[in-house]
């Protein structure tokens, strides 16, 4: 496979980093100093709410959206236009259309994923839900409309596989990606369902799973039905896609259209199963992953109780273990698909949060790790943001 070196366009960030921490019991801000050496925990906001995602709008660096629900109440989205000082609820949260009389309609259980729209589409946001649904807002997240081209697609039932076919917390639509060259070119990931692509702003969709394995299905290489845990598009090289899948780590050059399993070169005793995968914003050949035990009953913890991040700097041909500072043994971390992030500094800061409420940080691209917060609730998501 021959892939030319892509153009590198973005320059490193220099401002302080804020980690946006979404947990099962509310959301917190972890604010770093300019050297990313000391961190201050602020919050909570929405204490007791189940917060699946908190995302900063990079177009103004002040608007925050939060996907929330409580154990008792329905799902909603909260918005702040002043960097979290005050919040208002969406006046029309994501919801499926009402079904015709006598038919069973779909109900959004929770909003799982939030993605700001294209840089040129100010105020546009996308949301992914459980069960799988795609929603769009054109007013900064205040009102949300069903993306009918996906949610009502004739193939939707086959692609999504029904409500029993998903994660233990319900089937999800996630990894909503927008091609920075073309606001009409979108990708989504579904657990389960696979990766799908639209070239007309969501009007129609096609599966994009060639080369990707689904060893839990009778046909291990089906057209759809896969389980991508997290899918990424490189902002400086938008034809380069990565995914951490239920069945390994993959890379695609979109011009070729075939997923190539790059996790085969991981150590065999660690494997290439995991949930998150993180990009280096200026180097499309570099990604970080957090391997987890995917053997037998899928413990979903660090293999052998020895947590480590792995990095490739050559598009997956080789991987290096990064564990300095992490517990050497008896540490059974689980890191969810949204709970690992990288900042835009040089060197890149890499961060992950565990289901046991710890946040770990590295200010040198994973070479050294420090625990910067503990005793938080079960962490669902981390975003590394530079707020204005």
């Amino acid at each position, binding site marked *: 496979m021959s892939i030319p070196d892509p153009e590198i366009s973005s320059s490193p960030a220099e401002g302080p980093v804020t980690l946006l921490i979404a947990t099962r019991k509310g959301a917190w801000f972890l604010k770093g100093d300019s050297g990313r050496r000391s961190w201050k925990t602020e919050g909570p906001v929405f204490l007791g709410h189940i917060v699946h995602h908190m995302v900063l709008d990079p177009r103004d660096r002040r608007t925050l959206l939060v996907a929330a629900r*409580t*154990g*008792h*109440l*329905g799902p*909603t989205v909260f918005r702040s236009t002043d960097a979290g000082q005050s919040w208002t*609820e*969406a*006046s029309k*949260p994501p*919801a*499926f*259309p*009402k*079904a015709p009389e006598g038919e*069973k*309609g*779909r*109900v*959004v259980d929770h909003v799982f994923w939030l993605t700001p729209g294209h840089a040129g589409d100010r105020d546009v946001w996308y949301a992914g839900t459980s069960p799988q649904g795609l929603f769009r807002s054109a007013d900064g997240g205040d009102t949300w409309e069903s993306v009918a081209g996906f949610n009502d697609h004739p193939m939707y039932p086959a692609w999504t596989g029904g409500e029993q076919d998903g994660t233990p917390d319900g089937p999800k639509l996630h990894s909503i990606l927008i091609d920075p060259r073309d606001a009409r070119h979108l990708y989504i990931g579904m657990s389960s369902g696979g990766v799908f692509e639209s070239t007309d702003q969501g009007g129609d969709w096609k599966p994009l799973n060639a080369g990707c394995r689904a060893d839990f299905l009778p046909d291990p290489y089906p057209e759809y039905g896969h389980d991508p845990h997290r899918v990424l598009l490189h902002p400086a090289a938008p034809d380069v896609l990565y995914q951490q899948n239920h069945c390994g780590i993959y890379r695609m050059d979109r011009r070729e259209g075939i997923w190539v399993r790059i996790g085969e070169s991981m150590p065999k005793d660690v494997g290439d199963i995991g949930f998150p995968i993180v990009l280096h914003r200026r180097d499309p050949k570099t990604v970080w992953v957090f391997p987890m035990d995917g053997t037998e009953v899928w413990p979903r913890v660090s293999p052998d109780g020895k947590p480590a991040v792995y990095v490739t700097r050559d598009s997956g041909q080789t991987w290096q273990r990064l564990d300095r500072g992490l517990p050497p043994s008896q540490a059974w971390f689980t890191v969810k698909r949204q709970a690992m992030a990288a900042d835009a500094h040089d060197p890149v800061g890499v961060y992950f949060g565990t289901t046991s409420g710890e946040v770990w940080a590295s200010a040198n691209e994973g070479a050294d790790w420090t625990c910067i917060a503990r005793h938080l609730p079960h962490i669902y998501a981390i975003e590394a943001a530079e707020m204005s």
Partner: protein
Amino acid sequence: MKVFVPTPLRSYTRQDVVEADGATVGELLAELDRRFPGIRFRMIDEQGSIRRHVRIFVNREQVMRLDAPLGPADEVQVLQALSGG
């Protein structure tokens, strides 16, 4: 009529009891949503069903449908079903 509001919904009403009108439970909830925008969707899903962990009682009898009739002297209690962890 009096409507008793559970704690998870008091961020909308700012009080534990509100006065509201409606000939049915559905009309009552629509009236509450006009006054406290967003409150209905937290209790009722987009298909018109009462959410799994929400219970509505009229004069201490649980109602399961939004077309359940109401009178001016009725008391309505919205409760959160048990769900923890």
